[in-house]
């Protein structure tokens, strides 16, 4: 390669390109790994600090939480698996429908919401029956001393009768030993 044949401008361009490439190589080879590590460590430290602050706050309100937990823990039913809990839940609901003279058109078990410490079971039920029985069903569900909640429902009246069609979405919070 004959560099003497290059003019001044080409030489300057060549040198500038070489410097640029060397700078990039040095940055990517030496500096960047440290910069990346620095960012990751900084994030890790921030997370740890947030976690520590949160833990300190948790420890401070331990008594209050324990007290609240003691008050509600009896509501939680324990079972080994999610399937067992779902089965208990649907049986429980089925008993309630039957007791209220409501005809079950369909029951659908929707995917449950798995949280770290509990599972939220969801069941969708289409029922048919007298509006009074339906109100009684609602009343009954709301009076149950269990973590059951009516998430939504739709009530549709049949023409000129007291018969209604109901779609219910009911959830229940349960605790399992095996998630």
């Amino acid at each position: 390669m004959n560099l003497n044949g290059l003019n001044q401008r080409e030489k300057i361009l060549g040198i500038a390109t070489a410097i640029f490439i060397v700078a990039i190589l040095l940055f990517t080879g030496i500096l960047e790994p440290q910069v990346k590590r620095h960012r990751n460590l900084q994030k890790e430290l921030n997370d740890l600090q947030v976690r520590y602050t949160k833990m300190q706050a948790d420890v401070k309100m331990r008594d209050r939480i324990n007290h609240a937990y003691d008050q509600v823990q009896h509501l939680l039913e324990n079972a080994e698996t999610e399937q067992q809990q779902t089965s208990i839940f649907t049986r429980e609901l089925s008993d309630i429908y039957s007791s209220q003279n409501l005809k079950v058109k369909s029951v659908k078990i929707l995917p449950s919401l798995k949280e770290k410490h509990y599972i939220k079971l969801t069941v969708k039920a289409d029922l048919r029956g007298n509006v009074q029985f339906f109100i009684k069903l609602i009343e009954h569900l709301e009076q149950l001393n269990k973590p059951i909640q009516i998430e939504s429902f739709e009530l549709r009246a049949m023409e000129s009768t007291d018969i209604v069609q109901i779609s219910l979405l009911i959830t229940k919070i349960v605790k399992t030993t095996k998630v």
Partner: protein
Amino acid sequence: MASKRIKTDWASIRIIPGKEVLVYSHFQGKPKFLNYDDIESFQESLKRKQLSVNRWILSIPNNICISKTLDLPTNTLSEAAQMVEFELMSLVPIKPKDFVYGCTILKQQKHLLEVLVYIVRNDLLDQILEPYHKIGVYPRTIIPDSVALYSCLENIDPISPILLYIDKAQCHIFSSIKNNLRTYNRLDKIDIHDDSCIEHLANSIINLTDESKAFSDNTSITLVSKDEYKKNWPLLLKAKGVKSLITIKKQAEFLPENTLSSLYEKLLIKGAFNSINDHRYEHLNLLPSKNLNQIKRKQKIKNILLTGSLSILVLFLLWANFVLSNWRIIRTCRKVQGQIAPIEHIAKDVEHKKQLVRALQNQLSTGHEITRTFQDFYQFSPKAITISNLQYKFKTDYSHITIKGQTDSLSQALDYSEPIKESKLLKRMQITNVQQTPTPGGSIVEFKAECLLQDK
């Protein structure tokens, strides 16, 4: 020599034939002569870094220089220096690559510059430079002895147009116009007892004073010599017809330093040093271009190495900064982890319970909301209103109800929200859509209403 280290940017040097080395420079703002008894001691001083000089200036004997005067149509010396290059071919019968030249201003007239060009053959110059190169001195600037001597003498007396240096072997006569060297004569073998020699010197001076009269009224002469030689000269010259005022400068006035070595040599290196920043001599450097290029190349390499080293240092510092910073963060992380460890199991238990409590509270938050909603609908809805569809959706912040119903008249539908306002729970109900449909024997009004349950 004192063992104190001396570091300077510029210094002038001269190897005196008796192998003595003489150096002059300004050290810490003070002028200083350094005498080395022999070349070896000078080399040793350089080797031990007792003397560290960045750039050297050297004066060379005038007898190896060819001097020519040129009249050039320009006002500036830099332009004149460029023009000289084209005139040289006619001045000397030597190939341009075989000599080096420099020029200085002699006289400036309107649009015309008279310059004095010094030309030195490369081979002669190499012979002069050889002993300097041998001891590791590569001069950056080379000027003729006459210029160095004049530069020193004019510093001693800047007013006199005629400057005279006499010692037992030689006499140098300078005449100047407006501080530009006009003529230079050297007379060798000066003998104070030789009448013809004195007459010859006197005639030279008379000629110069006559020339000076044409330019200035001042024709004074300044005589510089060793104290033991100068006493009789004014009388002798006056006796031979020199009428101008002759001022004698005492050695102590211009060279307070101890002068063990030759005064002439000292004046030369002092003058050479004085000429460094003199703009009149900026184009007088007689350093061969190959040497100059070599120096420039060396300087370039030095600069590249310095820049490279600095860049690497900066990079290293940046890298070290990140490494140190990372190390510090890791240490802090460990410290925080150490603080977390003893409370972790407690906090986990609390967090677990907290999550459950929150979920259960949320699950139970509706209470008897839906039953109460039905009660309020029964209690506050007018009898003419029939509800055919009711949708309920629970949300964490509020529950939302949508109803569809029928009534007989438009006004009943539109006013439906009024009686409902009495319900605490359904207070915020709004009719969103009303539609009247004609039927046989009347009409039916269908409406849609939405409500956010007040309790939340």
